């Protein structure tokens, strides 16, 4: 309040002084009040609204304890939990920087809003279970006095994963894990499928897993707006602008074994305000990278990945935008009200949209790790180990590392395997997708990733890659009419298709909440909490997300998720 008052009352020239005053604590509020009253009186007087000095209220404050880059669902969730878990009300000043208030390209609003517990990793299942509880009680968590309750429009229709013969065993194992974690999932034979969903052709299906509770889809916009409204009422500041630069200081240190490392700390975030060349430096203690598909760029701005390859310094954040299409079609004879979200072994998926025989769906290329993200760990995960004998040596070296070195992120260089690094996995799809699907037969994923330069929709993609699978699975879809289509970006983690949370080991005050590759929306409530706990307490409390820390990219420890849609 003081800040705005100062800006209005004294003009931008004197802004710098505000910073000192800000820290004085309680007295400042008194001054703040006084200047606010003055301001009010001024504005009531004739001509008072006119100020000879330009208005700077659109600029961000010059100081904030936490700056969150990206006002999507993940950024807002971090803001929410920071405010909720802070020890004393108003203790932490949080600023959310979002460059596009219409969210025209944000994944959050372009997603299909699904939530499920059918994952292969226990952490992912736990995240979704926490989130579903949050969504169920959303009007308690996100209630704002005198605002209407949120209507999340949750469709509890479940996910139905289909597995071919090769995928059946893995599906069974996954379901075992899911049940252990408390998810309500049942296995179904093709017989049972035909009985329950007579519109389905079960050819090529050996087994199916069906989520009975807590799975379905909801309105992402509602969650986003609900979070926004709530965090604003909790005192979180918003700023419309783009983060363009970080100012940081470096600390050169040496490890016990004499290796040099540089620890960095970000002091200032430069926010470029829309339609203008001016930028505003914001002094801050912590930066949260929640820029979704663009978080790789934000990490680069902070100097992450700029270093000799093979070192921790040279390890990039392997998150990049991947374009995914969603098509909405009409099919008069299509599946009825009972239809769940069906995920075909081919990678195609669809679900009902509303009541009028409308459906939406798409198809993702099969997930293939590696290629070009500059991550040292790329090819060294345990799964592909056997197929890549040439890498066996260095992997052993890696595994023998002391855990202590790990926690500090200061690791001895073992560059021996650099030469092998760029080797691709044996064959895209053949060994990396043991999950409940095999790659689209027509897709050679790496080559056919659509160009993420824009969000234009490729309608041939539906004709050639999506429709054939759909029509094969649901004969009624042989005649359908595409009504609408859009594209959005997955915040795709090329390393293991899983989220990145927690601090960076070298840029010590940058925290991540990104990389969730197509399941970030549903996990956002839980992830925000985990990141806030990490910041406030120094460790995870509710859900242990240590497999999702950044250091795994350097260590090559994949937290591979097999159930990716």
């Amino acid at each position, binding site marked *: 309040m003081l800040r705005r008052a100062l800006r209005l009352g004294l003009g931008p020239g004197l802004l710098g002084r505000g910073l000192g005053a800000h820290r004085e604590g309680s007295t400042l509020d008194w001054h703040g009040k006084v200047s606010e*009253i003055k301001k009010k009186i001024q504005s009531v007087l004739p001509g008072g609204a006119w100020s000879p000095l330009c208005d700077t209220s659109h600029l961000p404050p010059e100081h904030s304890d936490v700056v969150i880059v990206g006002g999507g669902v993940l950024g807002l969730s971090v803001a929410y939990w920071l*405010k909720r878990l802070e020890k004393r009300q108003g203790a932490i000043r949080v600023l959310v920087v979002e460059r596009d208030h219409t969210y025209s390209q944000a994944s959050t609003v372009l997603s299909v809003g699904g939530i499920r517990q059918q994952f292969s990793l226990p952490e992912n299942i736990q995240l979704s279970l926490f989130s579903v509880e949050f969504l169920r009680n959303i009007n308690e968590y996100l*209630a704002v006095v005198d605002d209407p309750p949120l209507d999340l429009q*949750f469709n509890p229709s479940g996910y139905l994963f289909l597995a071919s013969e090769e995928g059946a065993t893995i599906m069974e194992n996954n379901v075992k894990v899911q049940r252990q974690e408390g998810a309500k999932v049942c296995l179904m034979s093709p017989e049972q499928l035909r009985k329950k969903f007579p519109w389905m052709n079960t050819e090529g299906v050996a087994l199916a897993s069906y989520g*009975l*509770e807590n799975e*379905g889809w909801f309105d992402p916009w509602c969650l986003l707006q609900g979070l926004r409204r709530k965090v604003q009422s909790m005192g979180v500041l918003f700023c419309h602008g783009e983060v363009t630069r970080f100012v940081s200081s470096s600390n050169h240190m040496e490890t016990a074994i004499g290796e040099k490392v540089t620890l960095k700390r970000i002091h200032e975030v430069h926010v470029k305000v829309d339609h203008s060349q001016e930028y505003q430096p914001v002094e801050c203690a912590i930066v949260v990278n929640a820029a979704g598909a663009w978080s790789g760029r934000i990490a680069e701005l902070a100097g992450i990945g700029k270093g000799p390859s093979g070192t921790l310094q040279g390890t990039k954040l392997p998150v990049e935008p991947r374009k995914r299409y969603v098509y909405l079609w009409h099919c008069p004879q299509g599946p009825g*009200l009972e239809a769940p979200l069906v995920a075909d072994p081919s990678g195609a998926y669809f679900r009902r949209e509303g*009541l009028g025989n409308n459906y939406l769906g798409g198809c993702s290329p099969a997930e293939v790790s590696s290629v070009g993200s500059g991550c040292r760990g790329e090819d060294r995960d345990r799964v592909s180990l056997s197929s890549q004998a040439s890498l066996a040596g260095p992997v052993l070296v890696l595994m023998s590392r002391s855990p202590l070195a790990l926690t500090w992120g200061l690791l001895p260089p073992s560059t021996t395997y650099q030469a092998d690094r760029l080797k691709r996995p044996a064959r895209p799809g053949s060994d990396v997708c043991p999950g409940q699907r095999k790659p689209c037969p027509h897709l050679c994923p790496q080559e056919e990733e659509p160009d993420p330069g824009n969000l234009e929709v490729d309608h041939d993609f539906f004709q050639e890659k999506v429709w054939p699978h759909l029509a094969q699975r649901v004969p009624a879809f042989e005649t359908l009419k595409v009504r609408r289509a859009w594209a959005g970006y997955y915040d795709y983690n090329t390393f293991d298709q899983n989220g990145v949370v927690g601090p960076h080991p070298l840029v010590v005050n940058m925290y991540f909440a990104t990389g969730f590759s197509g399941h970030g929306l549903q996990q956002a409530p839980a992830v925000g909490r985990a990141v806030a706990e990490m910041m406030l307490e120094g460790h995870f409390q509710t859900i242990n997300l240590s497999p999702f820390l950044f250091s795994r990219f350097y260590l090559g420890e994949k937290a591979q998720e097999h159930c990716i849609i």
Partner: protein
Amino acid sequence: MAAPGASLRLVAPVWNRGTSGIRGLSRSVDPEGSQRKGRTLLQFLADHFYDVEAVREYLLQKQVLKVLRKNRSSTYIKERYGPYVAGAYFILKQGGAVKFQDKEWMRPNGRGLSGELWKLREVPIEAVDASGCAITYQGLDNLLALKELQSLSLQCCPHVDDWCLSRLYQLANSLRELSLAGCPRISERGLACLHHLQNLRRLDISHLPAVSNPGLTQILVEEMLPNCEVLGADWAQGLKLGPEEQSRDTASSPIPA
């Protein structure tokens, strides 16, 4: 206990208003947030309004807590007397009625619970009339444990929502009759989950204000449950039963014993 209509009106504001904690309140009153030290007129007013808000908030909070408390399951009764007695106890406490197999309907009477209840450990419950009860998602646990339940009425339950409906598949083997009439929070999205209940023979989905398209929804539900008689929009219009006119007895009468 209150008639369904009354309790409906009583509880509806709770979810309309949302149920934020008191903690979050001062923020929303004064989003810019400052600890007021000096004594100014401005502050006096803010304080004043803060109190008003706080009192309101506190009352709402208390109502919510009451509902929560009512919906807690009693593990003691469950362990000692089994799921049937525990379920019956829960429903009777809420003001509903239960019917044990080969017994008469049991209703709460002014004198507290009848002693007979505690002797029915092994007797399954076949029908529950929870019309107008403040059952929530948690409270539903008590009902879902009744594996022989054939008839369930949740008419005008203010807290029964789509999330609750998604749990009813647990009764799929036994449930033959279900009434959801007048539940303010049930929409077509929740009704879609009823396809699990393939033994259902009679379903009442009339008077559901949150269903956007009652006619179409009824047709789709009928298609989804081909062996079930679905009572929907037109049936309800013929009856013109406002929640106010519904007394406990008329509310429960559509469920034959």
